[in-house]
């Protein structure tokens, strides 16, 4: 159970809607992930940290699928269920 109330989509500022649509497209899902809601609670954090994530996860010398696998390994090492 989350220790904070996650905001509903309509509670976020209008300027974040484009970011949310980009997130849905990126993950191929039709909902906003909880983590996106968490980092978007502070729009300045969402725009900076979120941009770092997009920049880091696109295909580069490592492919996106390799990067996602690294992310899973980091989550496993940190024993993070989310």
């Amino acid at each position, binding site marked *: *159970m*989350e*220790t*904070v109330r996650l905001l509903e989509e309509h509670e976020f500022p209008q300027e974040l809607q484009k970011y949310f649509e980009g997130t849905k497209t990126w*993950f*191929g*899902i039709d*909902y906003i*992930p*909880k*983590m996106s809601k*968490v*980092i978007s609670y502070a729009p300045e954090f969402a725009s900076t*940290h979120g941009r*770092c*994530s997009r*920049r*880091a*996860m696109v295909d*580069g*010398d*490592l492919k996106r*699928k*390799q*990067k*996602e*696998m*690294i*992310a*899973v*390994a*980091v*989550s*496993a*090492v*940190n024993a*993070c*269920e*989310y």
Partner: protein
Amino acid sequence: MGYSDDAYWYEAAYVYGVTHGINAVADGLRLPLEYSDTPARKPLIKAIEFEDASDRLKDIYSDIMAFYQSEQIPVIFKTLAHDEGYLRDYWGAVRFVFSDGKLNRLTKETLAFAASMAAKSDYGVDLHLAEARRLGLSEKGVMEAVQVVQLFSAYTKIADGLQLSPDFDPMRVT
């Protein structure tokens, strides 16, 4: 083409699991780093050097050197060599896990480097970064791995702190 086959994920789990096991022992015993040991760590258990090894142990060492294409035998194996039977099987597992499979060897070493960084293992970062570079990982690729580790180390802590329950289906294939 993504990693939709379970075999990729089994292999990845073997890699970061075995890496974690090696790192736990190497850092726990303060084994000297393979490539950047300044200042040097003082190991708690003495390694068995090649010249002091039995013939059977030399065979294992030779296989390790051939695998890494190096005259240098990682000290973790020279430490485990106090139980030759254990080392033989353990090295067999490591060689299997880090050989080309569904994932290639470079991807596995990059994964091990990232897992070591996430676990804050000096020994693992030192060993697997050198090995990934030897196998062809570019400096751009190194930084990309660093960025993913940094970002997801942050995400995992944020998720744990707020006790977020999962909302992604890991079996979903888009």
